[in-house]
């Protein structure tokens, strides 16, 4: 086994690990998110009502920041796998594209969390 083949295999095995760990976090986050939504809409859905609950709520902010972070780790790994299996893109190009998409998710996700939490 050459050095480059080994380092590629190690990188792929690591990605698999982080995809699984982030999936575990996402599973819990998704359940809490769904339960939270069902509970929250009971009082009606208005911007004022939502912002009243979220503004300055750092527990809410931490939870959704973690949710966004888990997405930003999980999605690019899966996207990379899909791209390498379905397209003729090289490993490097596919990695760059998927990581770029991960950064996009991270930035806009955190921005959305900030927008509803900031006073």
């Amino acid at each position, binding site marked *: *086994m050459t050095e480059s*083949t*080994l380092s*590629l*295999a*190690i*990188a*792929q*095995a*690591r990605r*698999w*690990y*982080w995809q*699984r760990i982030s999936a575990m976090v996402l599973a819990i986050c998704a359940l809490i998110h769904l339960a939270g939504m069902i509970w929250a809409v009971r009082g009606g859905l208005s911007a004022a009502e939502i912002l009243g609950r979220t503004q300055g709520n750092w527990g809410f902010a931490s939870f959704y920041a973690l949710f966004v972070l888990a997405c930003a780790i999980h999605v690019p790994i899966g996207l990379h*796998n899909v791209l*390498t*299996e379905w397209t003729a893109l090289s490993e490097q190009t596919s990695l760059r594209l998927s990581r770029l998409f991960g950064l996009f998710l991270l930035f806009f996700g955190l921005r959305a969390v900030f927008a509803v939490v900031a006073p």
Partner: protein
Amino acid sequence: MSKNLQVKVWRGKEAGDFVSYEVPRHESQTVLDVVTHIQRHLEPSLAYRFACRVGMCGSCAMTVNGQARWTCRTHVAKVASNDQLEIAPLSHLPVIKDLVTDMREFFDKWHRAQGYFQGSRSRHDEFAAVKPDSAERRAANAGIECIGCGVCYASCDVVSWRPDYLGPAALNRSWTLINDVRDTQQQDRMRAVAGDAGCHSCHTTGSCTERCPKHISPTAAIAGLKRVTARAAVRGKL
């Protein structure tokens, strides 16, 4: 039970065609019996492979009505649809002639997955004491009865689109050895099976497990390999 079976058999190499034969139907007849009848009485030039006829050697696997099966222990009554059979060589392997495939790549992959034992003791040493009920031994025992028939390999979707993927049989063998506490080449083996050409591109669709005639679960073995190699990779021990 009707008197005759209509049997379509693949003739040729990669390029070829199905040829129809009429074969007398018998009680407890196996698919291998059908192929043997054709070769002995109807088409002497038909090439196929078999040895033990009792499900031990793993040489008679073919595609029967679209599914990879061991033919010596597959009864016609179980697979024939409207007294019709379609028999083709195993998928994902080059065809040498008719029903015979070139299995070199399949067995080379066992070797690439370090699917062979390397111990440290000689005949002059004491026997290694391995507890039969230890977790490692039980995991190894679960996959040890593989006969290398290639049914799982021919049934695996990932093999079809990723030719360098080691495949279920090689990975299952590797997992039995990773759980062999006497083996001395664990680091090399984990390196050989890590990554997408190794175990990590398995989609866990489970066709290998569903089709394995020995009821082994390569899917579970591959899941085990994914866990131990990924953990080792993250901890810098790969």
